[in-house]
């Protein structure tokens, strides 16, 4: 019973807070300014956290009247993700609290925070397709409020890309779900992989779903929104984006892709290739960035690329799916916490003086080591589990292990680059006056290791000794450090070419293309008259339409003429003629009409 109440509260409590906030705003109240209120907002995910940690047996609640029939459930497999998300939200919230109380645009910030958080945690406990999709959308769209929080032009530009990509993702997800669940009125998430397996459109459905969620997880090619959003949002927002919300995408993939139910070798291979592209590409572009948050953003792209590898492999070879799912879950939890911690670190550093900054950067280095997969870190565990899961496909792609290790090197480079940037960034943004509790706690969590959160019970047998294999873990890091050294030397000698890849990479040429297309197509869809007014050159369609329009207008002019009906007068003056003609006609018709 308590469990059910908790479950309801998880969603209802933040929603209630949001409602109160909106009401207060409408009536010009001052709720949003109150200090106690900011605590409520910050700690709104507490029910979620308690539910996630406490629900060892699982809680289930059926709400047939809701949406298309809804089922809420915390099952053991998702507890970790839910707990991690709740934690990230709370920790980031602690960083946001000062902004809640006296930042600009408080109301929309708090509202966005609450709603996105609700969507995020609810998406992790809703089991039916419609409900999941609903909360996923709630999270995605509300996050816009957070992304554009600073209201700068850059933020708006980033927000626009974010929303566009989100909508794109949403419709892809919807299509995927529809294709997958054809014939099911109110399907559960668990039905989806099964349904796909039997569907004749399995590949299409899978692709749609993967791409749809791939927007959220910033799969390469769908990642355009990420650098901008991370860069221009406040770092705690980046923390929840990259630490919690991203995992909703991961969960979406895990829940809906037909992992283990059907073999889609081509698609699996494609996903692996794309993933690796993301992993290396993200690293490559990331190290050329100049802002710590941007670098961290590319790190997310890179990490998520890595995460795609087990997913692709599981699609390719269904038998490894259980292991892969466990690995991905672990990876996601680890990455979420670590990335959040790093962003919070950035937030802390920005508010610190020079001395404290050194401290902050060094602590961040600890977290970064975890991200890079240094031994005895959660990163190492994630990496090893992943490798283990991929063991069975090694025969297909023997180079996969190496690639993953190389990618770890890339991660290391990114971490170093991020820390370097962080250390050199001048203090900007809002100064966090209070003690950065959230960040410190996050560092603690990461350092202590994530698996204490309770690893998925469905996880594979623990790969005992192998994960102490320090060599396989260390050489990529070492390689990276060598590279860093080389780079530092080259830089000091001014040998390093000053390549700059703009933040947003491929988006830049795409945007240029879009502007060009728009310029070409200005006339499309306008009324012909408007087009004529704007002095556009005559078009083919205009040339075709012109005679018709002229004809119609002259006809109209004829109708409009308001003078006495001359035609009738004319007829009247020839009335005798008409009569005569008709007489003859009628006589003939009668005479000869019979035959």
């Amino acid at each position, binding site marked *: 019973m308590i469990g059910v109440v908790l479950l309801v509260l998880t969603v209802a409590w933040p929603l209630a807070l949001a409602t109160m906030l*909106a009401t207060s*705003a*409408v009536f010009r109240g001052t709720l949003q300014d109150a200090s106690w209120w900011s605590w409520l907002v910050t700690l709104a995910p507490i029910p979620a956290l308690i539910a996630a940690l406490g629900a060892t047996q699982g809680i289930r609640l059926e709400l*047939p*009247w*809701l*949406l*298309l*029939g809804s089922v809420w459930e915390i099952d053991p497999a998702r507890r970790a993700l839910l707990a991690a998300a709740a934690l990230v939200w709370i920790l980031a919230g602690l960083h946001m609290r000062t902004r809640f109380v006296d930042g600009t645009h408080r109301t*929309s910030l708090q509202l966005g925070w609450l709603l996105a958080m609700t969507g995020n945690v609810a998406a992790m406990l809703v089991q039916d397709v*419609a409900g999941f*999709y*609903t909360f996923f*959308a*709630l999270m995605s*769209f509300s996050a816009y409020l957070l992304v*554009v929080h600073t*209201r700068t032009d850059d933020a*708006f530009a980033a*927000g*626009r890309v974010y*929303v*566009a990509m989100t*909508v*794109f993702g*949403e*419709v*892809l997800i*919807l*299509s995927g779900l*529809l*294709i997958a*669940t*054809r*014939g*099911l*009125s*109110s399907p559960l998430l668990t039905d989806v992989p099964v349904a796909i397996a039997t569907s004749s*459109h399995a590949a299409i459905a899978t692709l749609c779903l993967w791409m749809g969620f791939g927007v959220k997880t910033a799969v390469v090619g769908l990642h355009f929104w990420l650098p901008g959003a991370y860069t221009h949002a406040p770092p705690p927002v980046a923390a929840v984006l990259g630490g919690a919300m991203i995992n909703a995408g991961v969960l979406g993939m895990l829940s809906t892709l037909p992992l283990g139910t059907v073999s889609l070798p081509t698609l699996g291979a494609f996903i692996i290739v794309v993933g690796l592209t993301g992993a290396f590409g993200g690293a490559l572009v990331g190290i050329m960035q100049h802002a710590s948050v941007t670098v961290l953003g590319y790190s997310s792209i890179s990490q998520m690329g890595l995460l795609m590898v087990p997913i692709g492999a599981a699609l390719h070879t269904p038998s490894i799916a259980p292991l892969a799912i466990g690995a991905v879950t672990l990876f996601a939890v680890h990455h979420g916490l670590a990335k959040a911690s790093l962003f919070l670190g950035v937030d802390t550093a920005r508010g610190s003086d020079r001395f404290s900054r050194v401290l902050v950067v060094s602590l961040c280095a600890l977290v970064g080591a975890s991200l890079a997969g240094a031994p005895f870190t959660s990163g190492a565990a994630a990496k090893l589990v992943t490798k283990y899961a991929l063991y069975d496909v090694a025969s297909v792609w023997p180079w996969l292990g190496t690639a993953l290790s190389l990618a770890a090197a890339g991660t290391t480079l990114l971490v170093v680059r991020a820390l370097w940037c962080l250390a050199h960034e001048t203090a900007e943004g809002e100064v966090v006056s209070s003690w950065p509790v959230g960040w410190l706690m996050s560092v603690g969590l990461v350092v202590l290791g994530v698996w204490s959160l309770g690893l998925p019970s469905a996880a594979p047998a623990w790969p005992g000794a192998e994960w102490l294999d320090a060599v396989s873990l260390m050489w990529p890091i070492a390689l990276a450090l060598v590279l860093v050294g080389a780079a530092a030397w080259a830089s000091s000698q001014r040998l390093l070419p000053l390549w700059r890849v703009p933040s947003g990479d491929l988006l830049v040429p795409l945007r240029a293309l879009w502007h060009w297309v728009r310029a070409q197509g200005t006339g*499309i*869809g*306008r009324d012909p008259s408007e087009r004529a007014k704007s002095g556009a050159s005559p078009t083919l369609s205009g040339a075709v339409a012109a005679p018709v329009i002229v004809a119609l207008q002259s006809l109209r002019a004829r109708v409009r003429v308001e003078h006495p009906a001359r035609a009738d007068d004319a007829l009247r003056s020839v009335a005798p003629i008409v009569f005569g003609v008709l007489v003859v006609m009628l006589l003939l018709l009668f005479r000869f009409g019979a035959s």
Partner: protein
Amino acid sequence: MSPIPEISGWWLPLAVLGTSLVPALLIMLLAEHRQGVRTVLNLGAAVVKLALVAYMTWGVAFGNNYELRFGMMPGVDFVLRADAMSMLFAGLSAALWLFTTIYAIGYLEGAPNRSRFFGFFSLCVASTMGIALAGNLVTFLVFYELLTLSTYPLVVHRGTPKSLNAGRTYLRYTIGGGAVLLVGVALFTSLVGDVSFADTGALVSEASYDATLLRVAFWLLIAGLGVKAALVPLHGWLPIAMVAPAPVSALLHAVAVVKAGAFGIVRVVYNVYGVETAQALGVLFPLAVLASITILWGSVRALFQTEIKKRLAYSTISQVSYIALGIALFGPWGSIGGLAHLLHQGLMKITLFFCAGNYAETLGVHDIAELDGAGRRMPVTSAAFTIGAFGMIGVPPLAGFVSKWYLGLGALESGMPWVLGVLVLSSLLNAAYFLPIVHRLWFRPQTAPWPDEHSFGTGETNRWLLIPTIATAVFTVGAGVFANMPYSPLRWAMLVVARVYTQ
């Protein structure tokens, strides 16, 4: 079987019709300054009608039949009948009429010609009710034309040259459409006879009729109805008719005119031909194509509009065709989607038009570009607008999502997966033209003073304008969130569809 006493309810359809017909006449006779009486008449009639419709809906759910039938002319009966399908539309009209009436009272405060306005307003709803309850094609035609006539004075209400020209365009389309519909009905009747709407189609054995002529009749009917339903290329009147006062636009777009067309298409496909016969005749696929083209074209045109109401108008063109699309998707899911959208679109679009009206009345804002920062000045209206816009895009848990979900299912079920592409594209376009507005509302600072601001005491705008806006917005959310509740639009659509398919 039925908990309601089995009354021979011939008077119920009549009463439902009368609750707006009688007030219409009374109001028209009322002197201009008798505002109190007029308001009481308006609201009283709306409430009574809602109650009657609710009662009837309840009865129909339990299988009761309410029918009024008498000979209209040789060979043709005048039939008013409440079946599940009619209650779908009647319920929508009755509910939204109440809100629109409230809204209009506030909107027209102090304006001239109110007796005329509300008279024709009521007449318009009477026609809508008649369309809903019509039990055969001729009766449908009667009210369909009555609708044209009663909406014309509303469209030209302002009496400006612009609105008069709009009225002329409106008439050209609708009267022309009516004529085509008349031919269609006449042809069908001459082929089959005066048949009443039946759940699985009035056409019992299509084999005994000339299939080509049946097809011709079908397309004539669709062409006639397509004018009001604003199917491309018959949609030209709709954006132009935007010059009408906001409550009228709301009525035209959400309840009355376009819906009458859409509902007519529903009737023709399901209750006249029967969906299975229509499928056998091969007319559903072209209809789906037509609807798809309309959906996309409307959305594309909407992108280029700079006026709020015009953008909404093109959006309507696009959205209403979802209904036709759902109908054309053979199979229960598509039907459910289409029928549910009939209601959902009404809720969402009326919300949007209310909001547009609120902006115009309170701030004097007509162009999208002038909306910057309106969210701060009018948060409730803007929230409602946001809900409506997101609903249109199909974002869950709003009503639009539910329709799209079932339409999508229907597309796949009927073997027209490309329709899914249309839906996706349309959603993207919807987002592309709605989200910038939402963005302006909330995230852009106000840059210029409002063109024509009115102050309404403490509230952001006139209470009469605000309450219906909130109500419909809440319904938009409710229809989605509680989609699976009994008597929700979705469930009612399911009930209807369960009776439409024979197998």
